[in-house]
């Protein structure tokens, strides 16, 4: 067995830690063995709460009994250490260590997607007594799978595939290893100054865009694969843009009018909230029936811009919490959001799951002001429902070139040539309730104004 010296610094080399058997008095036996210390700069449990360690043969298959899953969901579990006993046949095993989230686990308990940190290395030749090695799992390698067949693993200094290194003995202290949560890009970035009126400051930070599993109505909207996204600080409107705001821009700045309400209930514009530039009746209603380009112009006229798809999801999922809904985890969508209160008549067959609550059937359509219970912890309202919302990105599946970077995405916005389809986020009064989940994706044609889609504006801070 040849052993290569470690060329890169990511697998540092090692002093000893007590094996984790402390509780049952079975401190490692006296046989020569390895002690492996695993450290990470990832914040846990946000970017991983489980660690799977496998000892692999040359073909990449784990030997029998050579897989262990560790719960590493708390910062005080790091760095983690465990012992590895040698085989009576000699040799040095290959070791694969993966940090991942329970939600990303496949049915066999090991990572079911590439959303995690994956490291592959060979243990060094065993000396007398304990041979200590250390492995550092770096966030800069998040999403880069090792290739066990090709014997390559991620190089944290560049993200490229590196030949699987052979670890060497680690003589340093535990404190010298990378610390849990220390990844610089995960540190919150405060807004530079106070946000404008009626806007909420969203401190920048890193999160995982998307979700590992979902039922999509069309495959293009699958929230997989997930991506690590880093965002700068920004501010976002507390509320969806209203008819009143639109009217004042039309009257004061000469902006085009959106598609207006028509009185024929069979018309596709019957549910449009804008009336005329002089009619204030619906001023408190969220605006809909807006072409994408007009939404962009409205935000620009206010000195703002549309939020990106990543920003929108970051806000709706309560930032690093990555909650299921803007309001948290309560699955009773009807109780929180104006969602699935559509029409069922000869012309329109819309979701109505939330029309009847407690035996009372409400009227279809959006509601002025939306729902007070549809708010994020920072106070951004009606991201779950009322209107779905335009975001700045051209719609493209997460598998496409626009998103298909295994590396960290920094302030991403998909701006490939538009086929006239932009992303839309959030559920709406006539959308399916399940669309209220923060990670759900939708799309709409930019020039076919929809009574489901409104928008809010954002501003970099």
């Amino acid at each position, binding site marked *: 067995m040849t052993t290569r010296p470690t060329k890169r610094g990511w697998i540092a080399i090692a002093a000893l830690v007590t*094996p*984790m*058997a*402390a*509780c*049952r*008095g*079975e*401190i*490692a*036996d006296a046989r020569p*063995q390895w002690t492996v210390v695993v450290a990470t700069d990832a914040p846990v449990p946000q970017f991983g709460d*489980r660690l799977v*360690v496998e*000892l692999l*043969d040359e*073909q990449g*298959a*784990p*030997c*029998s*009994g*050579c*897989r*262990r*899953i560790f*719960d590493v*969901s708390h910062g005080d579990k790091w760095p983690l250490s*465990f*012992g*590895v*006993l*040698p*085989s009576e*046949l000699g040799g040095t*095993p290959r070791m694969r260590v993966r940090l991942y989230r*329970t939600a990303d*686990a*496949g*049915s*066999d*308990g090991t990572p*079911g997607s590439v959303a995690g940190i994956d490291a592959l290395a060979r243990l060094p030749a065993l000396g007398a007594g304990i041979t200590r090695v250390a492995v550092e799992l770096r966030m800069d390698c998040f999403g880069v799978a090792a290739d066990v067949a090709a014997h390559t693993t991620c190089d944290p200094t560049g993200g490229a595939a590196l030949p699987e290194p052979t670890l060497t003995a680690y003589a340093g202290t535990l404190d010298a290893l990378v610390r849990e949560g220390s990844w610089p890009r995960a540190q919150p970035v405060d807004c530079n100054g106070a946000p404008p009126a009626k806007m909420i400051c969203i401190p920048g930070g890193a999160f995982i865009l998307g979700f590992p*599993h979902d*039922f*999509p*109505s*069309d*495959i293009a909207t*699958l929230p*997989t694969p997930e991506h690590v996204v880093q965002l700068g600080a920004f501010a976002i409107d507390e509320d969806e843009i209203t008819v009143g705001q639109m009217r004042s821009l039309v009257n004061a700045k000469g902006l085009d009018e959106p598609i207006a309400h028509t009185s024929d209930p069979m018309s596709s514009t019957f549910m449009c909230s804008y009336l005329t530039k002089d009619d204030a009746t619906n001023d408190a209603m969220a605006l809909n029936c807006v072409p994408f380009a007009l939404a962009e112009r409205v935000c620009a006229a206010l000195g703002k811009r549309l939020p990106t798809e990543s920003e929108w999801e970051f806000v709706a999922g309560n930032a690093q919490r990555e*909650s*299921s809904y803007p309001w948290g*985890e309560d*699955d009773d*969508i009807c109780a929180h959001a104006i969602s699935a209160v559509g029409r069922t008549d000869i012309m329109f067959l819309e979701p109505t*799951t939330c029309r009847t609550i407690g035996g009372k059937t409400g009227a279809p359509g959006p509601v002025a002001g939306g729902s007070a219970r549809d708010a994020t912890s920072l106070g951004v309202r009606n991201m779950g429902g009322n209107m779905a919302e335009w975001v700045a990105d051209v719609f493209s599946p997460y*598998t496409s070139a626009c998103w298909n970077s295994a590396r960290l995405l920094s302030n991403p916005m998909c701006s490939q040539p538009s086929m006239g389809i932009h992303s839309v986020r959030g559920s709406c009064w006539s959308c399916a*309730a*399940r669309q209220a989940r923060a990670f759900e994706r939708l799309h709409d044609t930019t020039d076919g104004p929809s009574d489901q889609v409104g928008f809010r504006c954002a501003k970099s801070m």
Partner: protein
Amino acid sequence: MGGAGRFAFAASVAFSALGSVAACSTTAPARPQLVIVLDTDAPVVGQLAEGPGLSADAAIDTVRVDVMDTKNVAIELRDLVVPEKAGWPISFGVALTGPVRLRIRAFRGRLARPGTLGDAGTLESPPEITIERIVDLDSPTSGVRRVLVKLAADCLGVQSSFLDPATTCIDADHRAASPRDAIVDLAGDALPPTSVGTWSGAFDVPCAKAPAPGRMCIPGGFSVLGDLDFSGVDDIIISSSVPLHPVLVSPFHLDETEFTVGRLRALVQKGVFTGPQPTPRTPSDFILAFCTWLGPNDPANDALPVNCLDWSIADRACRIEGGTLPSEAQWEHAARGRGRGLLYPWGNQAPTCCSASGSRKGPAMIATECAGSGIEPVGSHRPSASCNGIGDVSRDGVLDLGGSVGEAMRDKSASFSDRCWRNVGIVRDPVCVDDGIVFHARRGGGWNEGLAIALTPLRLIYPDNLGSPTAGFRCAYPGGAP
């Protein structure tokens, strides 16, 4: 598996201790205390690496312990993640005086949702796939009382009752026992050996006999029907896939392909299939133009799945062949990899135009994702290198469960929350029989539907007396008890 036993992990992992008392005998404090030693016969996630014979759906990895007050409100809770057999039995101490009520739940972390209790973050597992036990104990007035509590896999999905008197499941024969039952006082400090992974239901059950040609053996075992990601997917043509239903499926044989025109023709010509036949292809009709039946004498479409048929024709054909239409439980057990919860018959990779026969041009005036029109011969989407090794084939070699034609089921079409499915705990070989429901269930995607229809958890409706170019069938046969 290479090099069995070559290397091994040296030490087991320490576990969390609950309350103020550590689990280690060396650190036991002197004051009175209860030490609960918790074990289970359910398999744990760490055992799934040992081989393919265990149902992944049966594996647990998380235990939540709530300490309840007299009003059954949790006053303290812990989530213990114990995915490895070496971590069992779990032991933890409770430093309280007087009577103590614990609510203990074991489940699979990946299927639990984050929740909150007061200020504490926690995990909430669907009760249908949780082993729950409530335990009433008296704290000792002096010394250490050590008790063994076993969580029985047979109790999966059997919820406890907190009404007075409270009841809880302790094993298959005692699903409403007293919380004071089946608590074993232990003498000495030694932990008993664990029974993790000894529950027989978690293991594959082989077919007792080899299947006839053209049929595949589907080993029996444990599956969880339904999928939490499909909550809220429930409308006129889709039945709800939640709540989940744990089932035991007996081994059976399943047709490798959907029932073809040629196969039905042969039955007609042999004289064993009499009575109404499928609606024949009618070129002038824009829907019936996609029907495949050409009458009993025309072999041109023999390789195509038969479609446009009344449910009773499918049912009759299967019975003539010595089988029945598959139940939804059988179909899902086969299509989702027998307890692996696969999203598609081939795995979890999203479908493309090569991986299954779907989104082809049909009668509807909708945009299609794939080139080509009309129905394809059965087995047209076997795994291929040009499709990255993916194709419409299940773990057991059954073809076209994802696409081609949707398939008629033996069950009536009902939401998983309907009366038909209102079972408690694990059910063996369920079939939804309800005379009040007109239509039968349909599973599997159709050639002219969007590719997402290949998702195995989707539950659709078979148009019983109408038939459809999109729907056909295949048959299931007894696999024999071992």
